[in-house]
């Protein structure tokens, strides 16, 4: 029954796509060789959804997010792919119909779906010009950066920093209206409005992070990219911020791309999770499916690499080895040197993302274990995962 409900939600989400990343690849042109930071990544983000990107440092999750916002500069190079954004006509706070700023720019839309309303035309972010990008960023897509300590200007009051955004993007607003909006935003994220005249150093870490979220929300964007917004915070404050994010999402209906290496936190927060390894998505699915039955050996390893607070104490081993150098990624599946299940095809052919269990069509995995032609023994069961990982860590200790 619960599953039926969940599946119903999924079907609805599919018709409600907000952002579609198609075959995106990003390289860094370094002197010592080309680093393939993001490799052929495709993913969709639905309206109002929280999408989690998880993986170890250097797996390309931040690069992917910055590529979506077109924030990468040389030596980073987007080599291929498109990111389609589906703008919509919105009714803003004052009840005025606000046409998406992106579609206001007169240019031929990349993809035209003649059956649907005009507002449903997709725009390719990768093809945007400077003016369009300026209109797109912040109004449609905002970013919350990793370190709250550095993202705010230390010599400007937080109120001024919020009003600054409004001044740049909503020139029609008067100073009083801007101030009103700033006060409203502070209240929204749970900061007392009288702190509008505070400098960043007068605020605690959690309040600074809230202030940054307020700035991101200033123009009611459709998408907010959050790059490890809570890593510098304590557990209690982290929890408060996450609760705040989910509350604001319910209230304002934006979508979130949440980047973190802490999968334990993401499982509770995100609707959908994509796990990245060496620049590719190795598994994606709803957070419940991923927690309940991870398919990829790497996902299983990540899920079992943090101690839990419930139940008896058990030994946790993690994933032996370290992520590969992205200049020389192993052939075939990049995870094969660390994988406890690696067999012949893993070094030869690259697995593609495909459905592992036809009943759960949302959960995709890139692993040969789920391909009966290559692996006729069938997919491993959970106990087998645990066993293989235990023996692998024994071996790595012995060597």
């Amino acid at each position: 029954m619960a599953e039926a409900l969940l599946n119903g939600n999924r079907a609805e989400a599919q018709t409600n796509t907000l952002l579609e990343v198609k075959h995106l690849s990003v390289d860094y042109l370094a002197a010592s060789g080309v680093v393939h930071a993001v490799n052929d990544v495709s993913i969709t983000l639905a309206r109002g959804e929280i999408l989690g990107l998880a993986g170890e440092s250097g797996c390309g999750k931040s690069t992917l997010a910055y590529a979506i916002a077109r924030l990468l500069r040389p030596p980073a190079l987007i080599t291929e792919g498109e990111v389609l954004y589906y703008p919509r006509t919105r009714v803003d706070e004052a009840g005025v119909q606000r046409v998406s700023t992106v579609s206001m720019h007169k240019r031929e839309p990349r993809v035209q779906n003649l059956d649907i309303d005009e507002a449903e035309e997709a725009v390719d972010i990768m093809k945007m010009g400077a003016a369009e990008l300026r209109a797109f960023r912040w109004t449609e897509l905002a970013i919350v950066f990793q370190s709250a300590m550095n993202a705010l200007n230390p010599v400007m009051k937080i109120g001024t920093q919020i009003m600054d955004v409004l001044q740049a993007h909503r020139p029609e607003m008067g100073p009083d209206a801007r101030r009103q909006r700033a006060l409203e935003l502070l209240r929204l994220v749970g900061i007392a409005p009288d702190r509008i005249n505070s400098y960043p150093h007068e605020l605690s870490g959690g309040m600074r992070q809230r202030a940054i979220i307020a700035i991101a929300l200033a123009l009611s964007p459709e998408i907010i990219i959050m790059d490890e917004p809570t890593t510098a915070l304590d557990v209690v404050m982290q929890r408060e911020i996450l609760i705040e994010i989910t509350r604001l999402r319910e209230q304002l209906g934006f979508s979130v791309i949440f980047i973190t290496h802490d999968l334990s936190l993401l499982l509770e927060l995100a609707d959908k999770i994509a796990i990245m390894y060496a620049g590719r998505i190795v598994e994606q699915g709803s957070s419940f499916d991923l927690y309940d039955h991870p398919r990829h050996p790497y996902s299983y390893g990540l899920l079992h690499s943090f101690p839990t607070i419930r139940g008896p104490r058990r030994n946790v081993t993690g994933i032996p080895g370290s992520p590969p150098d992205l200049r020389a990624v192993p052939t075939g599946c990049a995870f094969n040197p660390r994988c406890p299940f690696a067999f012949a095809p893993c070094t030869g052919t690259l697995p593609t993302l495909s459905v592992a269990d036809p009943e759960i069509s949302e959960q995709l995995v890139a692993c040969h274990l789920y391909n009966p032609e290559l692996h006729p023994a069938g997919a491993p069961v959970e106990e087998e995962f645990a066993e293989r990982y235990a023996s692998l860590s024994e071996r790595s200790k012995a060597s």
Partner: protein
Amino acid sequence: MNALDQLQTPSDARPDTPIMEIEHLRKLFPLRQINVFGPRRAVHAVEDSSFALYPGRATALVGESGSGKTTIARMLARLYDPTSGTILFQGQPVKMTGGNALREYRHHVQLVFQDPFSSLNPVHSVEYHLSRPLRVYGHVHNKREETEQILSLLNRVSLTPAEQFIQKFPHQLSGGQRQRVAIARALAARPEVLLADEPVSMLDVSIRLDILNLLLRLKREEHLALLYITHDIASALYFAEETLVMYAGQMVEGGPSQEVIQRPKHPYTQLLLSAAPDPDRMDPNQKGLGTLSARGEIPSLINPPTGCRFHPRCPYAMPICKERFPQRTDVGNGHWTHCFYYGDGGANLEQPPLLNLATPPAPRRRTGRAQRKPETPDTKENA
């Protein structure tokens, strides 16, 4: 090493003699006087803390930032002088003056810092970092011995092949490798006590576990007494036999880790637990993250709240909580707490019906669909 293995005690049994005892430790950081005739002001960082460290056992100190846990570690490492209270090392009070006494003390007690990116000197190689303590403490007398010992240290912290790491500089190492070098440097002094100040909080999740397992192995094999400081309560349960919870400079709860974390008593411990990420709480039918019972932050420690410092945030605060700090109450199984709810001093084995803020939900059964085999797999291949 084998001899040590045989000596090893089961981790649950507590050895009789502590290697280090801390009694009524207190630290005030005086502030600059703005008004010369005004009252003297100070940051009350740590108030009246007492605990002990045992060889071969780990004690975890858990709390938010600003709770004074790092101050305690730094006092134990003698980086700060305590305002009052005594530190006993092997039964002897630690001398607070004199350079030689300090050096002798640091021979036995070493500290691993939180941030491996700033605790290693970027202009020196791994070899230099490890050779300094070996020389300073007179463990080596010539170059050959030195190289031998450095290689064995690197092997002990699993930086293999050691020959390759010896000449590297910090910028050539990853965060986890740097932290291993920092641990090796602490081990070079051959200490009996290792103070680890959030050794894994700057590291990636998958590397954290490697470092924790390394410290666990060292604890077991070398019989080190460990003080493990963290804000991640799950890792305290994993790592330490004993857990102490600090709030705003006061120790509010302590006891065996299983007891403290599975059956938290103090409302603050319950708050910490309810805030910790816990995927088992995830419910597919329900969105959102639930609520926290207490909001807010650690109060200013310049004018800390009177009595129990948690009372402004505590959902169960009573009038008496504002007046004074409760006495230590034993709640059984070596578990104690400072909270009026459980009484005021003495042993309270009969607990009042509680208010559990962090009620653990029934363990969710996995649906076990992972065991089902795919029926119509996608065979598309991509070379």
